[in-house]
């Protein structure tokens, strides 16, 4: 039972409460009774416009807490569709959302949480063509994307438009959080002038992520966003917060504005958005792996040779914990151990190397060919392709 007598009248007394309805005063009462937020702060939240780029792992807690807190207008940018591997961490979505556009499922969930606020949806890839147009109407941008080109794009667009960019990124057990693009403060390019070349740094899809990690990092981004709006507390401007969930440690590093920064420095050379796929070394649609002359065998060819009884040696170069998920009964030597365990292999035998998708095993084949192995093939598409083309009982992960 909610009774009207529960409304805290004190802090709101004497202030122009006209902008909050009676229902809103009740809904936000836990904010209103704190002097740091109060009626003034709550009205700022109501007038604020925040754009969340990405509605996945980081976007989920962000969207939920900003909506619950009463941020008046929230924009969501995403193009993805909910799949079952998202549900381990993207708490905005439920089982019934699988197959639905994320933006649609997210908007429905947030509107249910707080019908008083405006949710704008952009079902699109943020690009150099649309970014300035999408960002321009918002006060604060929150970066919850998952790739380097979009992160540099969001950074540059925010700097060009003079908007704060609340940044968070995650990998496995580790997160980085800061505020870029605040007047006088550093930007993403001040921290990292250039992205890593494609393939050198694994993504969450390849490297994995502890489900609760985006929850913690996204919630910190939400806290920073709310503080920027109400103008209270110390922001993460000029401070890089590192979080390690495995060691359960927070650390803080100094983040300085780079006077030579091409986008926010004294002699800036970057005055409009560029081609970010090119900047990050990704040409064309899919980043092609620069694997040449690696002898390959398809899953079907391998199956028929095994059925014929050919003496093939299956080398699995994944990690032990992956072998436990599924395997082709191969001999396991993780790629990282191959150089010191190469003597376990017999170069006179025919060897087929495989991993999950065919990428790591291509490296293994290349390495072994350099080591003198001649009868060696890479299983094209890895165990994923084996599951698709030969044995659907093998689970994909």
């Amino acid at each position, binding site marked *: 039972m909610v009774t009207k007598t529960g409304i805290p009248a004190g802090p709101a007394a004497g202030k122009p409460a006209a902008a909050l309805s009676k229902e809103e005063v009740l809904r936000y009462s836990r904010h209103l009774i704190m002097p740091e937020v109060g009626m003034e702060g709550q009205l700022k939240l109501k007038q604020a416009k925040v754009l969340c780029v*990405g*509605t*996945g*792992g*980081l*976007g989920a807690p962000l969207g939920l807490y900003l909506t619950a807190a009463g941020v008046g207008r929230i924009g969501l940018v*995403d193009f*993805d569709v909910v799949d079952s591997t*998202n549900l381990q961490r993207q708490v905005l979505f439920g089982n019934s959302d699988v197959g639905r556009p994320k933006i649609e499922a997210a908007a429905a969930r947030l509107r249910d949480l707080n019908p008083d606020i405006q949710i704008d949806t952009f079902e699109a890839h943020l690009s150099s063509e649309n970014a300035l147009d999408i960002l321009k109407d918002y006060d604060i941008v929150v*970066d*919850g*994307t*998952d*790739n*380097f080109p979009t*992160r540099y794009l969001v950074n540059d667009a925010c700097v060009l438009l003079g908007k704060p960019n609340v940044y*968070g*990124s*995650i*990998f*496995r*057990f*580790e997160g*980085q959080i800061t505020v870029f693009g605040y007047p006088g403060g550093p930007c993403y390019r001040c*921290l*990292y*002038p*250039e*992205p*890593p070349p494609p393939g*050198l*740094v*694994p*993504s*969450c*899809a390849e*490297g994995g*992520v502890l489900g609760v990690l*985006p929850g913690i*990092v996204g919630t910190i981004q939400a806290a920073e966003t709310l503080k920027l709006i109400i103008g209270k507390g110390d922001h993460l401007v000029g401070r*890089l917060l*590192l979080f*390690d969930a*495995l*060691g359960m440690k927070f*650390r*803080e*590093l*100094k*983040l*300085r504005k*780079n006077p030579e920064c091409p986008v926010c420095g004294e002699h800036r050379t970057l005055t409009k958005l560029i081609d970010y796929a090119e900047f990050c070394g990704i040409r064309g649609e899919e980043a092609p792996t620069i694997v040449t002359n690696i002898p390959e065998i398809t899953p079907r060819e391998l199956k028929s040779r095994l059925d014929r009884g050919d003496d093939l040696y299956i080398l699995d170069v994944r990690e032990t914990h992956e072998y436990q998920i599924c395997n082709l009964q191969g001999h396991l030597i993780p790629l*990282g151990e191959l150089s010191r365990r190469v003597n376990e292999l017999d170069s006179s035998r025919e060897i087929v190397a495989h991993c999950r998708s065919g990428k790591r095993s291509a490296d293994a084949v290349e390495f072994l060919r350099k080591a003198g192995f001649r009868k060696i093939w890479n299983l094209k598409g890895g165990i994923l392709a084996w599951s698709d083309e030969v044995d659907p009982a093998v689970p994909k992960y």
Partner: protein
Amino acid sequence: MAVKVIIPTPLRAYADKQASVEVQAKTVAEALSALTGKFEQLRKHLYSDDGRLRSFVNVYVNDEDIRYLQKDQTSVHEGDTISIVPSIAGGAR
């Protein structure tokens, strides 16, 4: 001087899965060379082919970025902590 080098998650696979490693060094350069001497595979992740520290890997002595100190000639003292902080991009998917 004994200094602690903190290995970030993405690079632990190349450092025997360790979260931190103690090395003897008087400068950052010495510390990193001791580290890559111990873990050869780390080298290509920290340095480009021309031997320069990669621009998506930042190195800190305690909480200061060595780019604003004496770069890899920054001196280190007993008990200092060196952090290697590469850029990571994960978040949505």
